[in-house]
């Protein structure tokens, strides 16, 4: 039994925005923990943050912002009916997602190679503030990385949808909502990057 197909552009966008709220609050829990523990261990947080690779973090910021630009352009391309341009821009977004994950792999491999990962013998001998910093670092960035992965898959699916004509100039709300999701991933990173790499 199938419900009648009713299209409600505004409704679909409203639903997506509500979902994005829930995502923000999901990350919000981790940011609350960050705030409380930073207040408790300011010195040790600063010391631990020195060990992060600022270059890789900055590169990932540039990569994500570029990806967001490409996805935003793909939405305006589909509005104009540029099917080929839309696909190219979306695949560009997919590449930025993969580059981000590759970067993250390099970064984490190096850190794990130095014996810094949750519950590692080396980390457990450090002062409590540093253990907490790296605990939060792995949990928060891991959750964010998972979102990058989901977003990348979404962008790839949207590129295929555009190719097969599911998404077109008169019905592009799926693409627009996927774009919104991608911007959320970007937005969360905009807070993660300064808090973990830059400020301390």
């Amino acid at each position: 039994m199938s419900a009648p197909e009713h299209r409600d552009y505004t409704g679909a966008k409203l639903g997506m925005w509500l979902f994005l709220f829930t995502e923000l609050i999901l990350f919000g829990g981790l940011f609350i923990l960050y705030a409380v523990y930073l207040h408790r261990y300011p010195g040790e947080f600063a010391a631990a943050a020195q060990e992060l690779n600022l270059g890789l973090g900055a590169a990932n910021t540039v990569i994500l912002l570029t990806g967001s630009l490409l996805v935003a352009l793909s939405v305006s391309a589909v509005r104009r009916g540029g099917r080929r341009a839309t696909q190219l821009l979306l695949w560009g977004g997919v590449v930025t997602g993969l580059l981000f994950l590759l970067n993250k792999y390099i970064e984490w491999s190096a850190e794990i190679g130095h014996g810094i990962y949750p519950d590692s013998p080396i980390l457990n001998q450090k002062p409590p503030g540093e253990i907490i910093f790296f605990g939060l670092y792995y949990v928060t960035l891991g959750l964010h990385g998972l979102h990058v992965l989901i977003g990348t898959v979404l962008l790839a699916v949207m590129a295929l949808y555009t190719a097969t004509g599911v998404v077109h100039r008169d019905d592009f709300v799926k693409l627009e909502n996927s774009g919104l999701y991608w911007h959320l991933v970007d937005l969360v990173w905009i807070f993660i990057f300064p808090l973990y790499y830059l400020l301390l």
Partner: protein
Amino acid sequence: MTETHPAATNERGFLAPTGNGLFGWIFSTDHKRIGLLYMYAILTFFLVGVVLGLLIRLELIAPGETIVSAQTYNALFTLHGVIMIFLFIIPGIPAIFGNIFLPIHIGANDVAFPRLNLLSWWLYISGALLALASLFGGAGFPDTGWTFYVPFSIQTHTNVTLAAFAVFILGFSSILTGINFVTTVHRLRATGVTWGRLPLFVWTLYSTAWVQVLATPILGITLALVLLERVLGAGLFDPAKGGDPILYQHLFWIYSHPAVYIMILPGMGIISEVIPVFARKHIFGYWAMALSGIAIAFAGSLVWAHHMFVSGLSDTAIFVFSLLTFVVAIPSAIKVFNWTATLYKGSIALDPPMLHALTFILLFSVGGLTGLVLGSAATNVPVHDTHFVVGHFHYTMFGGTGFAFFAGLHFWLPKIYGRMYNRKVATAAWAAMLVGFNTLYFSMMVVGLRGMPRRYYDYLPQFTSLNVTATVGSWVLGAGLFVMFANLFWGSLRGAPAGNNPWGGRTLEWTLSSPPPAENFPSPPVVVHGPYIYPEEPTP
């Protein structure tokens, strides 16, 4: 009064076989079928929870080990809590009656996202099955209580990992329902259904949906952190590594206190539907009722730390959270006063839905006022973690939401199935439940005031008589529940035809045939007045 709809000639409405057998149900995107799927699942788990509760009471009939060991007792009350909270009360009213009647109440043919609705049912079932699976892995079902407090939940060898993951999935299901309902209320109201003409049930579902959207993600991240602690040992809540277990309690209650309003608000909505119908009067103070639901949802989101008065909060924090807790009592009292004001000079018909609704007002008032005993910092300390808390909690959640749910069942099942249960049997079952309920939970509150702690399978001999009384009460309550469900079940299958509007309701569902047609409204309805307009003369 009876109204017949032009399309009232359908054969069993949306219940008519679609030719796809079981698949016509479990892959249906019809909001009414999904609502019934939820009902069958939720009632099944409710009955399991009831049996577990009766076992807990049986263990407490005498001091010392009676029927189960201490470890089994811990698993029993954890399983009872997890099932009743996450599988029954939280989804209960919104997922069943909300799904079936929210779209009809606003004149829509379905919710905004029908496929998402089906997905949320599948997530619910998956989460429920995972929770049951955790009975069998590791060292058995968690013994942490439904709150999964650290550090114990990280250290215990029982199957916390799977159970917490199950609750995470259930939370996701709850979020999707919330998103769906908010969008539905905003986008799918029929012509003439203004905000001031929404039935109050819709208003409470709307407030609830916002709490679901805004609070549940916190539970998600909190339980995800417990999982990560168990798997990775990142140490975020482990004092040995610099973490703080109290932060877990904050995060847990930031969700779980608003969650009690997810549980109670839809129940209040049902009461607001039932009372005008059986008093034959317009609800007293429509806007006060609508907005007090929003106020409860808002204020209720700011009181979480009143669960933590003995966890070592600062005096300032305790004062602030205690004050905010008292603030929640104001909109709650507005609702209680408005219901009683609606009854004043009404033409009251004591049919089974009304009996349950009136019981709700009584029991919820007891539960609400004993909540103030707990919310006040000075009295909280001596009764903290005693059976007084358990009694209070069951007065609000079972006496409140539970009886509202039963009122909804007696009110709407004749509409859903088109058949009427036996009203005399329903009244007898209600009387048994009322007596059993108070015998059980009032004894609990008294024994708690005398100092009996909760979550122990053993107790001092001086508490014996009250515990025996409570256990006997649980049998009367259980018998009443059994008769009630048997009667409703029999009535839905074999009862006499109920007609389209057995109670004389004025909301849109009563204009449809019983059971409602698969497409709710053949032509979009046009609503020209509010939902509770009754003529001066009492209708027969």
